[in-house]
Every structure is written in structure tokens, then in C-alpha cells.
């Protein structure tokens, strides 16, 4: 195989040429003849009853084609939820209807009330201002604990309460965990908030619906991470369009981070309206709309207790989390605080008893769903914070406490239902201590002190379950979908290859890495392989990209399809070389009869497949195209160790990240450069969560952080150069490439490392502060040191806080 283009080569990203030269083709670049524009009129109150909507003035405005309200969608279904959770008492979760346009009640700021379609965007907006809507404002409930009290405002009158579900895991362990904690030599307790985030992909969401009257078929162009999932959900559950009459195209997509997994009302609206109006209908989200309509992330409030014996072995772990669902259930929302969170609570440790309780709560806020890491950052954050706190309370080295409790034998069955196939936690720890120069910290501390600054160093480990997911397992856990992946490998007559994958690239670089894999398997140059994705019309049914699943699941499907190609090509070559297929070797793109110099090039064989003159037509079909579906046997379990080093300005409370080192075990790595880029991006988001980002609402449900003036996005200059290493490799044992996935790791492992470092800096300066909530803004850190007023409300306790902290 070519040394510079196969598995393990840091090939430059081929897609960057078009992205960097402005020739990418994003959804907003698509404009269809006769296209109209929709403007959504959104609620400016958090909770209210719609008394009346009078469209008469708006309908008469220039260019207006139609004013839509919920009345136009009486035949349509609600936006479906893809996962069902069962509560501790055996009841299924409460699942309110999520209409395309509000039906009588608005439930969060940004909830769409009406939609105006006009010939131009500005005309639609003008008409929106003329639309007369009378709303009776109702009391809103923003805080999760308040929402669960008797007499609290109800987000949905149709439900019994604001409690979506009350989940216990593993319920059978509950009493044993309680006993172990009661009888422990030491228990460390920590209450913390995992702050609500807004994903902020660079490209806001866009949808264009089109209807072909002649063929009675629909097309939706949309900014999606998984076009087939949108086709299934929207077609089957919302608009009743059979899949063969519905095409969903997600072309170049400018970042997703989870927020573009879900089926959104705007997609269904544009698809439906295009048929009603017999012309394409386009929606382009403004950034302001994105803040109040893209699914938010995180927003957990947690109490965690870690029990240790006299020898500092972890004996039990108990957590209680309130998870904010927002006003409606987004596509995968119930899975995030449960199966993507509870199953990771063992972390990298041998804790024998774990019990996780999660109460999911409806509030008058934007729906919350998966955001880079999805449940696993929430698990990692609380666990790595409590382990650090335990070490401090016990006066022992946080490194040694972790080492003492590491899982060292694999496969390892955790007490939270998953089995880790491989890992070597000491190896990543050793590596991160080396590249962070942990041993040299004291010298750097002295230099900081000389400059009047506090300095601290923090360690965090993580484990994540990626490569989601075994369909039979997730089916038992409440998933309403399979989580396989697919690929079709089409070999053209002259040897070039097009791979149609169900995975979707929106920044991950699949066009480069997937081509490297196929090229490596056959031994041809990667330039001979093209990757096609994102269009349901020409890719096999796939489940898309999220949960660090593309290479582990989508890549495996591609490998399986390529193996079928090679097997068939070998038979063709055997016929042409008059040998047995068993004797044919494929190496460097040539088929050779073993032990001879009889050989055929790849192109000779592929040509024969399509020009089958000398061909075993009685044994095999002409052509060379194969499809494979791959359903993983298990999750993959990437792990790693991160070290953050910070300086704190004691006068202002400002935290500066001075160094960050990441040692990850992703199993085998296809393209180390792209992997490093993924980790760096994840670190930026994770450190951003720890220090900067917070979605904040006021008590009335107004979104305070509604623009970049108030939502703090990290900038490049907020970070030092990261040290990223993926040389520790314990290959996954159950997929053909031995890969684990790398997309989310950075965002999972970094927040606790940052917080541990800041707490360490404060302790070294004599400030015995147990915890500071994220984001650790200058004001919060200053208040922790000096006791002055913080940015939060006076006297507000952790329990009273939920949204945005």
C-alpha cells in the first residue's frame, strides 16, 4: 500500500481545499427556482396561552403567500422522541406532544407560534411584525426543583406533573450502595452543576423543502448529521410521507456537535409548506434564532457521594441528578442523562457498587439534548471532581488515589451494565504526566508566585462509551431505532472507487480518512477513492454521525463491504490468471498467483468485471459493487488522562490556562493529524465550558445569553498550545479496524481537569474552597477567594440553581 496515503498516515484533509477556498456547498448555498422564504414568529414569553392569532393584516402584506398556524397542521404528528425511559416504579416516561407550531400554548422563549411564507425574506419578516397575536402570559417554571414542587406551574397541562421520569440504575444495587456508604470509612460528597450550553456550530441551521408534483415526491435539504434519521422520523411520524417519496439531503454541513442530530419543527414545516404552496420553501436560521431554537446541552444538577475504605479503595458511588429536558422532549433527550450517563459512572475505577438516580424535569426552556459527549461529560465531570476532592480530604496524592483504584484487567464488566473490552489507564496516565511535565510543576509554581499569581495543576481521567451502538442492546434500553451503519462500495470499470456511506461528515474529515482505509485495504492510492455521503437518494440507509461512531461503526461497514469487493475481485482474478482463488494474493493493488510472477493490476480486474468477455459468468455476476451493514457487538471505550495547568489572578479571579496535555487511547488511529484536530476542538469546547460558556435565563424565562455579547465563546487566544498524544493504543477487540472513536474525548475529559487545576491553585494559596461551579468566571473565582458578591443571585444555593447556573 502507498506509504503516505493509507491507514496511519497524516494525510492532509482533501475537503479543506473547497472549504478554505469558499467553494463548499452548504445548505444555504442551495437556491431553487421559485423558492419562497419562511419567517417563524416565535414566542417572546416563556409560558403563555395563545388567545388569538389574527393573520388578516399580515396576509395582505406585499409578497405574502400564506400565514401558517397550528390549524394547518392538524393532520400532522408531533415531533417524535426516539428514546423511551422507564421510571423506577415501572411507569414509562411522560411524553408530551411537540407540535410543529404551538397549539394554544407557548412553552419557551423561541417556541414557534406561526410561520409566514413570502416571496422574499424581508417581506416575510415585515408581515411577521403585522401579525396580531394575543398571548396571556402564564407563570413560568425555570428551576428544576421548583418545577417538582406541588403547585408549581405546569409546563404541560396534559401531564401529571413536570417530572418526565425518575430513573434508577442499577435499581437492584440501591440498598447495597446505601449500606456501603453508611458503613464506609470515608465518604466524600460534592454538589455541582453541569452548566447549560449552546452548541453554536459555525453554520446555523437551514432547511429547504421542495415538492415535485409530477412525481408526487418531496425533497428536504437540511443541515443534518443524519439525513436518513430525519427521513424516517419526519416521514413516518410527522408528515406521513413514505420513504420512497421523500429524499433528504444534508450536503456540506458546518459543524453540528450534536445540535444537528435532531429532527426539528422547521424541517417538517418547510417540507410540508412546499407541497401546500407548490413552490420550494427555505428557512435560514439567524444566529439569534439559533440561540433559542437549537437544542441546548448539559444542564444537570448533581449530588455525588464516593465511599472509600480505610485503604482508600473505592467501595461505592451514589449520585442523584436533576436533568433539565426543557419544554419538550428532543429526539434523543431522554437517553442523555440515563444510558449515556449512568453507564459511565464507574469511570476508570473498580468501584464495585454504583447507584445512579436521575430525575428528568420539564421547564419553560429550550429543549435540551445531546451536545458533544452527551451524558459522558456529565458523568466524567462529577466523578473526577469527587475523586479529586476525596484525595484532598484524605491528604493523599490525587495521582496515587486514581492509580490505586484503576481497572487493570480486561475485559471488565462494570456494575453499570457495560463491559470494557480493552484499556490501559496506567499507560495514558504515565504518558500525560510525562508530556505535561507534572514533575516540574513546583518550579513553575515558584515563577508564578514571584509574579503574584496563583498556580495549580489538575488531573482528570475519562472513559467514554462510543461507537454507538449494539442495536439489540439499545432496543432493550428503550431506543426506538437501530444503531447500525451502512456502506456501499462501488468500484468503477477503470478501478476508481466511490464509497456511499451512511455516516455523515460535518467537520470530521471522512472524505480523507475513509478513503485512506479503502485505499489501504486494496493497496491503491487514496486519490482513487471518493467518499459520498449525505443524500438518502444515493446512500444506503444509515444512522449518521454522532457519539464518536463514524469510524468504529461506519468505518466497519465500509471495511465489510470492501472485504466483499476483494473476495469477488479475487475470484475474477483467479479466473483470468487460471488459478484457484485461494492462491490469489492482493498486495499493493495487484493480484498475484502465490509463488509466481503471474499478476494482474487492480484496474485489469475491475475492467473485466464490467467488460466480462473473459469472465466466469456461470459462477459470479458481472459488476463490482457491494453493500454491507454493520451492527457493533459492543460499545467502544476510548479513555484518556488529561492534565491542565492554570494561573489564577488573585486580584481579579481571572483564570488563564497555561498548559493542557491530553493522552488518549483511541485504539488504532487512521489519520493522526485529523485525530489531533478532533481532540483540539474538543478541548476548546470543554475548556470553554469550564471557564466561559453559560446559557443563562432569568426567573421569567427570558434568555439572558441570547447573543455573542453575553454568551462567551472561547477564542483561540484563550488557550495555550495543547499537547495532544494518541500513542497509547489498546485496539478495540470487536471491530475490524480496532478503532474506538475520537470526536468527543476532548470535551469529556477537559472540564474536570480545568476545575481540578483551579481548585488546586486556590488550595495551594490557602483558600480551602471545595468547589466552584462552571463556568469559573473571574467574578465567581474572585468571590470564592474574597467572599464578595458573585454574579449569581444573593444567597442562591446549589439546590436552587438549575438553568445556566
Amino acid at each position, binding site marked *: 500500500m502507498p506509504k503516505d496515503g493509507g491507514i496511519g498516515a497524516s494525510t492532509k484533509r482533501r475537503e479543506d481545499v473547497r472549504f478554505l477556498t469558499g467553494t463548499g456547498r452548504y445548505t444555504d448555498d442551495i437556491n431553487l427556482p421559485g423558492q419562497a422564504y419562511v419567517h417563524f414568529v416565535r414566542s417572546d414569553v416563556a409560558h403563555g396561552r395563545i388567545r388569538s392569532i389574527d393573520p388578516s393584516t399580515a396576509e395582505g402584506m406585499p409578497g405574502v403567500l400564506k400565514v401558517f398556524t397550528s390549524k394547518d397542521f392538524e393532520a400532522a404528528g408531533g415531533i417524535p422522541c426516539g428514546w423511551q425511559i422507564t421510571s423506577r416504579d415501572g411507569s414509562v416516561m411522560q411524553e408530551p406532544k411537540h407540535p410543529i407550531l404551538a397549539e394554544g400554548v407557548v412553552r419557551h422563549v423561541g417556541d414557534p407560534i406561526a410561520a409566514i411564507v413570502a416571496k422574499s425574506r424581508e417581506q416575510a419578516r415585515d408581515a411577521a411584525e403585522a401579525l396580531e397575536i394575543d398571548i396571556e402570559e402564564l407563570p413560568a417554571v425555570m428551576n428544576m426543583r421548583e418545577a417538582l414542587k406541588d403547585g408549581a406551574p405546569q409546563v404541560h397541562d396534559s401531564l401529571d406533573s413536570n417530572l418526565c421520569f425518575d430513573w434508577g440504575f442499577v435499581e437492584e444495587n440501591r440498598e447495597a450502595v446505601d449500606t456501603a456508604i453508611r458503613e464506609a470509612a470515608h465518604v466524600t460528597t460534592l454538589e455541582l452543576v453541569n452548566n447549560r450550553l449552546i452548541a453554536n456550530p459555525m453554520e446555523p441551521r437551514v432547511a429547504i423543502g421542495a415538492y415535485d408534483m409530477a412525481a408526487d415526491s418531496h425533497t428536504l435539504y437540511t443541515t443534518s448529521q443524519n439525513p436518513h434519521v430525519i427521513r424516517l422520523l419526519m416521514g413516518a411520524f410527522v408528515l406521513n410521507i413514505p420513504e420512497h417519496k421523500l429524499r433528504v439531503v444534508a450536503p456540506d454541513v458546518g459543524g453540528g456537535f450534536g445540535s444537528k442530530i435532531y429532527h426539528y419543527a422547521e424541517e417538517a414545516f418547510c417540507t410540508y409548506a412546499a407541497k401546500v404552496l407548490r413552490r420550494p420553501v427555505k428557512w435560514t436560521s439567524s444566529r439569534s434564532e439559533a440561540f433559542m431554537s437549537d437544542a441546548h446541552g448539559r444542564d444537570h444538577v448533581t449530588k455525588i457521594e464516593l465511599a472509600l475504605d480505610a485503604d482508600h479503595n473505592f467501595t461505592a458511588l451514589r449520585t442523584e441528578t436533576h436533568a433539565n429536558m426543557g419544554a419538550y422532549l428532543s429526539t434523543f433527550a431522554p437517553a442523555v442523562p440515563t444510558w449515556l450517563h449512568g453507564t459511565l459512572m464507574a469511570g476508570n475505577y473498580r468501584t464495585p457498587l454504583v447507584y445512579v438516580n436521575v430525575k428528568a424535569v420539564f421547564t419553560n426552556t429550550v429543549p435540551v439534548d445531546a451536545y458533544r459527549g452527551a451524558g459522558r461529560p456529565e458523568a466524567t465531570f462529577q466523578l473526577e471532581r469527587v475523586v479529586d476532592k476525596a484525595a484532598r480530604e484524605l491528604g493523599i496524592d490525587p495521582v496515587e488515589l486514581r492509580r490505586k483504584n484503576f481497572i487493570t484487567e480486561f475485559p471488565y464488566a462494570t456494575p453499570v451494565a457495560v463491559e470494557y473490552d480493552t484499556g490501559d489507564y496506567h499507560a495514558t496516565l504515565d504518558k500525560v504526566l510525562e508530556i505535561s511535565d507534572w514533575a516540574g510543576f513546583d518550579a513553575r509554581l515558584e515563577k508564578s508566585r514571584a509574579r503574584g499569581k496563583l498556580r495549580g495543576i489538575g488531573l482528570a481521567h475519562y472513559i467514554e462509551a462510543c461507537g454507538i451502538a449494539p442495536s439489540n442492546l439499545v432496543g432493550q434500553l428503550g431506543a426506538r431505532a437501530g444503531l447500525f451503519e451502512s456502506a456501499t462500495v462501488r468500484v468503477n470499470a477503470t478501478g476508481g472507487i466511490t464509497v456511499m456511506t451512511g455516516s455523515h461528515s460535518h467537520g470530521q474529515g471522512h472524505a480523507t480518512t475513509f478513503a485512506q482505509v479503502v485505499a489501504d485495504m486494496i493497496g491503491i492510492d487514496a486519490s482513487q477513492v471518493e467518499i459520498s455521503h449525505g443524500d438518502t437518494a444515493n446512500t444506503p440507509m444509515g444512522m449518521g454521525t454522532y457519539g464518536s461512531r463514524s469510524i468504529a461503526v461506519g468505518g466497519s461497514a465500509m471495511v465489510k463491504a470492501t472485504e466483499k469487493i476483494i473476495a469477488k475481485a479475487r475470484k475474477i482474478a483467479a479466473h483470468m490468471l487460471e488459478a484457484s482463488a485461494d492462491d490469489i494474493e492482493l498486495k499493493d493493488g495487484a493480484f498475484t498467483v502465490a509463488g509466481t510472477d503471474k499478476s494482474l493490476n487492480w484496474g485489469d480486474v475491475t475492467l473485466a468485471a464490467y467488460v466480462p468477455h473473459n469472465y466466469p459468468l456461470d459462477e459470479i455476476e458481472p459488476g463490482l459493487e457491494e453493500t454491507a451493514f454493520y451492527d457493533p457487538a459492543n460499545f467502544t471505550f476510548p479513555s484518556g488522562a488529561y492534565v491542565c495547568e492554570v494561573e489564577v489572578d488573585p486580584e481579579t479571579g481571572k483564570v488563564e490556562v497555561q498548559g493542557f496535555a491530553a493522552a488518549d487511547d483511541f485504539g488504532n488511529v487512521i489519520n493522526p493529524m485529523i485525530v489531533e484536530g478532533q481532540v483540539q476542538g474538543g478541548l476548546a469546547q470543554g475548556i470553554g465550558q469550564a471557564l466561559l460558556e453559560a446559557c443563562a435565563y432569568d426567573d421569567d424565562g427570558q434568555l439572558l445569553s441570547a447573543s455573542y455579547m453575553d454568551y462567551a*465563546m472561547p477564542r483561540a487566544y484563550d488557550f495555550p498550545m495543547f499537547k495532544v498524544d494518541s500513542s497509547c493504543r489498546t485496539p478495540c477487540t470487536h471491530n475490524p479496524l480496532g478503532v474506538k472513536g475520537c470526536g468527543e474525548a476532548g470535551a469529556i475529559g477537559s472540564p474536570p481537569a480545568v476545575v481540578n487545576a483551579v481548585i488546586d491553585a486556590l488550595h495551594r494559596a490557602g483558600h480551602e474552597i471545595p468547589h466552584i461551579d462552571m463556568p469559573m*468566571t*473571574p*467574578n465567581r473565582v474572585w468571590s470564592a477567594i474574597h467572599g*464578595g458578591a*458573585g*454574579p449569581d443571585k444573593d444567597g442562591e444555593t446549589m439546590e436552587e440553581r438549575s438553568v445556566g447556573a
Partner: protein
Amino acid sequence: MYDFEFMKPSSLDEAVAALAEEDAQLLAGGQTLLPTMKQRLAMPSKLISLKDIPDFSYVKAEGDTLTIGGGTTHRQVSEEAESAFPGLASLAGRIGDPAVRNRGTIGGSLANNDPAACYPAAVLATGATVITNRREIPADEYFQGMFTTALDEGEIITAVRFPIPEASRYEKFAQPASRFPMVACFVAKMNGGVRVAVTGASEEGVFRWSEAEEALTATFSADALEGLAHPANGMISDIHGSGEYRAHLIGVMTKRAVLHLT
């Protein structure tokens, strides 16, 4: 954005005449106005661009004064004021990002008087004079609260005349999201004494911290500020910082400015 007319007059008189029209609005660098219009929060009937007004963009040092044309961009000030008035050049070079500095102007910033803008601190701390098409306005009279100035209808800032301080320094603590000043202090050591102006912190916009001025005029050293604390009442309190925190930062930023100069 709503529809509007656009004109680019080639003389100040023409601009003033156009401004008489109801809901007409001047456009300088557009760094605040255009985003506001895009969000439909402003709806001028006519935009009058100042780009083509002659002699509107310059930095001129003469003796003890530095005069800057109303249409001068932040970038130009950061480069051309460097030798005569480094404290001001440094301030200008830290406003926003390069795109903002290449478009935004000193006249636009002062006319808008955002409570977290940078320039008002330098103008007030040096006791500069705002020159308009009609009159000269001393800094102490010009700033009249958040987004409020002494400018009348139809008045255009044509230049700002700064007395050049013996030494000056602008210390800024950025709000984490917008990177506007959460609190920023401009300390100017003038011929007749020290002046300290604070931006970002107060609900009333830019203001002078007179206690610090007196202390620093007596002794220009960081030690002179020991024990001085600005009260928290009247300070902005929001999700980024409490009033108490902002008040505290006034002391820290002022001290750092002085430390930089001593």
C-alpha cells in the same frame, strides 16, 4: 433590516442638511448601527455616510495637543498616535478585533457613548474637547449618561482635541463574552494633576473617580491608592459580574495603570 435610503455626501454642509430629515441617521463605521439595523432595532429612513467628507480622517500632533478627525478609524489612531500619545494608541489598538478597528471611528464611538466603550475613558480622563460642526464641548460636559451626550440634533463630531498627558495608561478587564470592557480605567497624568476615568462599570456610563485622582495627584504611585475603594452602588450588575465585583475591579485596574507608568 428595513428599507432605507443611502447617501454619501461629499461635504459637511451637505451631511448636516440631510440630517435635518426626520429619522435620518449618520453612518460612521457602522460597528454598532449596522448590527442594530439588521436586528430591526433601528429603522432610520436615511443613512448618511460620512466616508466621503473631506479632511475627516486624520491624526495631527501640534505641540501639546493631538487632534483626531471624527472619521478616523481605530486602526489609524493605533498606528498614527503612537509616538505623540502612546496611551491613546494603545487603547485604540485594543478595541474589538481587526475588523472592528478597520471600520469603527472615534467620532462614531463618542456619539454612541456606549457605557462600555473604550474611547470615552480617554476623552474624559484627559479632559479632551469634542469639536462639532457648531461648537467645542469639554469632555466634562459631553458625557451625560449611558448612550447620552451633549450633542444636539444635527450636530456632527468633526474632531477630538486631546491635551497630551505627561503619561497615560488604559487598563481594560474584558467582559468574557463581548470582550468590551467589564471595567476599564484610563489614568492620565496631566500638567495640572492626575485624572482617572472609568468605563464599563457604571449604570451612568463613563465617569471620573475623583478620590483616586486626588490621591494620585498628591502622590503618583500605586501605594497612594491603598485603602481607596470605589463604592458598589450604581455599578452595573449582570450575569458577568456583580456591582461589587465591578467596583473592586476599578481599584485593580487603576492600580495596574499606575504601576505600568511608575
